[in-house]
């Protein structure tokens, strides 16, 4: 069911920490929330979950008010378990929600198989490794079969290998949730990979919202562009967002002067790497002709080398 937020305002110690006049999250889709630290991402999730009171505003799921914990599953950024077995931890939420023993076991079996943690069922949950604990946290949320799933940086703190492995499997897990899912992340690549929709929050306010592709390809302001991983450069007296690939966003096809430090032939074109000011970028040039060489200064526009100075 679609999740709607209207006129949501949260004050903490007299300071406005969350101000969301309107936000609609589409049904059974994953929406990523990106933003710098302290931008209100986690506060928004906690308010949606009823863990923090909203000073003003309304949250509804499919037109009706969220009915409390029974409507949702929440994966915290911090790993937290009871000092019990994985099996008991997975079953606790279902027991509290009055799910029958047979159904509980069916759901646990399905969740642990999907997350690859069936072999951990009899282990103490509070003694798992970081990667195992993240998987079991997701399995616990999956067991609940909630209509709204809130994931607060579910891959935080993993080493590169564990991260890569789990992020590869996560689309399948998100599909299994079959719910309106909100994923807090601070990595743009993670959002691009996992979420159909994207919300960018800065200073407690929603600064951009839409499909992930639209928001990433059209960052309308330089602070949104920065959150999305772009470098903001000045060109022609205007500020323009430049991605590491040399693509440029912002007003007009502006030209930048790049100092080349590497050229590699890739198929029918050349990959040119270098620096614009202090920013490392990559652009491409046609393979025909002499082309740029390391040490050259070239003019780049929209990711393409358009001239060698």
């Amino acid at each position, binding site marked *: 069911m679609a999740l709607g937020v209207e006129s949501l305002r949260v004050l903490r110690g007299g300071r406005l920490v969350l101000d969301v006049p309107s936000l609609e999250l589409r049904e059974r889709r994953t929406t990523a929330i990106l933003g710098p630290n302290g931008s209100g991402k986690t506060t928004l999730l*906690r308010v949606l*979950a*009823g*863990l923090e009171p909203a000073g003003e505003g309304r949250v509804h799921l499919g037109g009706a008010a969220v009915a409390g*914990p*029974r409507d*949702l*599953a*929440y994966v*915290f950024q*911090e790993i*937290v378990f*009871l*000092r019990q077995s994985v099996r008991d931890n997975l079953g*606790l*939420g279902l027991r*509290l*929600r009055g799910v029958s023993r047979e159904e509980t076991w069916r759901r646990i079996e399905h969740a642990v198989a999907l997350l690859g943690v069936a072999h951990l069922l009899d282990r103490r949950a509070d003694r798992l490794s970081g990667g195992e604990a993240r998987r079991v946290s997701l399995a616990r949320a999956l067991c*609940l079969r909630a209509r709204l799933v809130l994931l607060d940086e579910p891959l935080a703190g993993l080493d590169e290998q564990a991260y890569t492995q789990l992020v590869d499997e996560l689309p399948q897990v998100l599909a299994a949730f079959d719910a309106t899912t909100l994923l807090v992340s601070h990595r743009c690549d993670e959002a691009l990979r996992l979420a159909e929709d994207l919300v960018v929050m800065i200073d407690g306010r929603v600064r951009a919202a839409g499909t992930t592709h639209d928001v990433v390809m059209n960052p309308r302001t330089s602070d949104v562009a920065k959150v999305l991983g772009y470098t903001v450069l000045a060109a022609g007296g205007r500020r323009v967002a430049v991605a590491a690939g040399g693509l440029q966003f912002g007003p007009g096809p502006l030209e930048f002067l790049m100092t080349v430090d590497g050229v590699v032939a890739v198929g029918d074109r050349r990959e040119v790497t270098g620096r614009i000011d202090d920013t490392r970028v990559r652009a491409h040039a046609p393979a025909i002709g002499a082309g740029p060489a390391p040490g050259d200064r070239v003019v780049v526009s929209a990711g393409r080398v358009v001239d060698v100075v």
Partner: protein
Amino acid sequence: MLAIVLRTLIVSGAATALAVTVGVPIGYAIGRRRFRGRTPLLGAVNTGMGMPPVVVGLIVWLLLVRSGPFGDLGLIYTQTAMVIAQFLIATPIVVGFTAASIQALPSRLPDLLTVLGAGRLQTLWLLAREARLGVLAAVMAAFGAIVSEVGAAMIVGGNLERSTRVLTTAMVTETSRGEIERALGLGLVLLVLSFTVNLSLTILQQRSRS
């Protein structure tokens, strides 16, 4: 001798049970909630944990003595008076240990239980269960402190041979009589008693840990 051992167990056991009944909920509230005056209260509890038993005994004696405010109750020099004094010694210990063990739980645990669907009472029960190692440690520390104290038991119990003499006060009596061997024997019994009770609780604690 057996009567003294039984009396020691009854008095200190009753005082511990009462201290746990009162102290665990208070410790839970201090450990879990944030309220005005919490820090001074915690400071008072920590001070109470180190309160000399003889001072507690003196205060209880002043309250229960015939001419005191509760003198009409006729409790002075009874086992009830000893239970009251030992209860006052044990309660801050139980409160302090319980508050510390509740505070040591992961900070997000109450939130987790809420989003999993636990009600207020279920959350309280599950958190207390999570802190059970600390609560059992509180029981052991409280029992250990009062079974071995002599000052309060002597002052409010009066060390009456057939009614309020316990192992520690009996040791004082035997020592003052020059019966050192008897005093040492009583000391050994006290050690064995204390060890047996603590070993039982430790086994329970370690079983729940694994």
